[in-house]
């Protein structure tokens, strides 16, 4: 008999405990309820979920919250296609807007066939590791090491190494997510709007003769481009030609025409840089030999 009552007491106690806890949960559910716009989840569904950070937000969820909030426009997600952006805009009843497309661009033209090597690097096959060992062995200390850290880090498969060991950016696939900019130990990548068609593909700060001795397509700071360019579009700084993109609306092909090395180029399309008529022709395809 006693055992039965024990059983009843423990059963009743457990049931009571359950009721009390359920009441607390029900109370908390009402009291601590946070309203979340259901559209945030819907927008997130329409986003690529690559969390690449190209939009400048902490991730796709953060982007969705801000779009629904009206802080940013749907077009700021550079990974989505125009259709997907419009989908988000329709869902929220706002305009998709337009953002000028940016692409990652490399400020170096020194592939193995034109840039000399001083020493052969052997070790961990990444640019980061090579840069720590005496700069990586390239005669030009500013130039691309060609070990493809950028191609490895690219989430969108937009960077491929060409046969001369230089990364080539596919502007269609590039979302301007900034990963390659951060990973390059020489700081050669930057995100440029496609309207920036005039481009100096060199960062060598040595004086002209030294620069040209280390790489056949180096900027020698001869100043011809500056002379030919519209007023204030170009200038020389640190033995390099620099484009002043504040005056980009005045940019023309003129500065590239007399460039002796072809260091300064004009992007007819975002993927195809054109060299000037006076640029020396590079017919070599094989890597240059090691020069001590």
């Amino acid at each position, binding site marked *: 008999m006693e055992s039965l009552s024990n059983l009843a007491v423990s059963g009743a106690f457990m049931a009571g405990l359950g009721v009390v806890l359920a009441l607390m949960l029900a109370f908390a559910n009402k009291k601590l309820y946070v309203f979340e716009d259901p559209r945030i989840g819907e927008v997130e569904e329409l986003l690529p979920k690559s969390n690449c950070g190209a939009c400048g937000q902490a991730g796709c969820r953060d982007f969705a919250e801000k779009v629904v909030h009206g802080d940013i426009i749907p077009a700021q997600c550079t990974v989505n296609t125009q259709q997907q952006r419009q989908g988000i805009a329709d869902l929220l009843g706002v305009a998709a807007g337009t953002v000028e497309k940016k692409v990652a661009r490399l400020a170096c033209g020194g592939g193995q066939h034109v840039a000399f090597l*001083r*020493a*052969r*690097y*052997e*070790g*961990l096959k*990444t640019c*980061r*590791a090579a*840069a*720590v*060992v*005496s*700069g*990586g*062995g*390239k*005669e030009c*200390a500013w130039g691309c090491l060609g070990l493809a850290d950028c191609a490895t880090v690219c989430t969108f498969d937009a960077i491929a190494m060409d046969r001369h060991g230089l990364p080539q950016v596919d502007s269609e696939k590039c979302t301007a997510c900034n990963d390659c900019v951060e990973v390059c130990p020489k700081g050669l990548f930057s995100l440029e709007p496609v309207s920036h068609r005039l481009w100096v593909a060199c960062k060598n*700060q*040595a*004086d002209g003769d*030294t620069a040209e001795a280390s790489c056949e397509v180096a900027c020698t700071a001869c100043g011809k481009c500056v002379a030919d360019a519209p007023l204030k579009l170009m200038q020389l700084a640190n033995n390099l030609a620099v484009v002043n993109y504040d005056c980009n609306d005045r940019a023309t092909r003129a500065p590239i025409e007399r460039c002796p090395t072809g260091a300064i180029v004009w992007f007819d399309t975002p993927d195809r840089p054109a060299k000037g008529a006076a640029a020396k022709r590079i017919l070599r395809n094989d890597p240059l030999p*090691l020069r*001590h």
Partner: protein
Amino acid sequence: MKFLNYFRGETFARGIHPPQHKETATMPIRRLPFASQLIVHLSQQVGRPAKPLVRVGQEVLRGQPIAAADGFVSVPHHAPVSGVVEAIRLHPTANGPWSEAIIIRAHPGSTQEVLWQQPQYLPALDADELIEAVQDTGIVGLGGGVFPTHAKLKVPKEWPVDTLVVNGCECEPYLTSDHRIMVEKPADIIAGIGIVRQLLGGPRAIIGIEDNKMDAVEAIRACLPDDGTISVEAVPTKYPQGAGEMLIKTLVGREVPPDSRSYQIGAYVQNVVTLAQMGALMPRGLGFIERVITVVGTAVEKPGNYLVPIGTPLRFLLDCVGARDEFLEVVFGGPMMGQAVASLDTPITKGVSGILVFRGREVAERTMRKTYPCIKCGECVESCPMGLNPSALGMLAAKRQYELMSERYFLGTCFECGSCSYVCPANIPLVQQFRVAKRILREKAA
């Protein structure tokens, strides 16, 4: 392990015993001639680059200051040779990025005589004046740290130093320049110790020398003052005995906690060559313009310990010692911690204690074995003198988990001695990964 220490003397735990190759230990210091062109980099030290004091076309005398310190953590530089300033321009460095350098064309008849000096009576100087006098010599940590010595000597008042540990271990294989200076210039070392003791308020000084250099121990013992303030101790030969933390453990029996300086436990470490240079230069107020460098390796015809003017181009030095091969592997420093050099135009800087020159193909065959995955054998853990876990650090580095490496596995305390890479049977380039990780973390912090 304590039991074993009873037989071989107290020392730090773990560490390795690489082959020593101290073949040049018996070769006296010899002078190298001047190159026709010397390149003095404005940044040869930790801290800010110096500011040039000379113009292009100006004549300079050997020993004359040509660049002034820019701020406290910076040192001046002096002309290593009499000549004309040819240019001030960017020049390759051993680290990779080019930096500003003063290029001096040597006069053909330039002599070894130092024509510029300012004698001073050191015991009359107070602490600040003495630190300034150290800065004026342009001396930096010559063991390879290249931290400005005067800045290191400014120990905060709240941390009294009771022991000056003089580091004469030279635990790196091949290098013998410290050894030769201890044998040939013991009086300079004692004078340098006197200056540092004056600055630190007279702590006792212990000179630690590895027991493979007993002739150096005896040479210094013969010069010791009678008052017993300076003693010499032979410490067990083990790599990396010459690391500051390890030598403090061996000689004083204290351990430096992570993220602390050695003066916080009352010990102050100084390299023996740095002290020798202070002792030799400061009474006469000279600048630091030449240093002893061990040049050795299989590709060198005339190995030895050479007194080389700062700024001598590597190409000239290799010609002098007869190093010729199609491919050379050139390393500044020792084989464990040294740095490969990419350009023969690189000049000798203040921090270079040795130059190893091997035939490139030989090195490539030996070192470029295949890398295998980590099998967690624990050899690296057994060798790490700091008690870190290089295996775990290496795996995290491969996954680019750099923050985790520093927060959970104390990457910051690794001083890159190379023991883990040396013992790794899978040939994993552990230290190189750590160097990359440290550099990335530094960039992120900046």
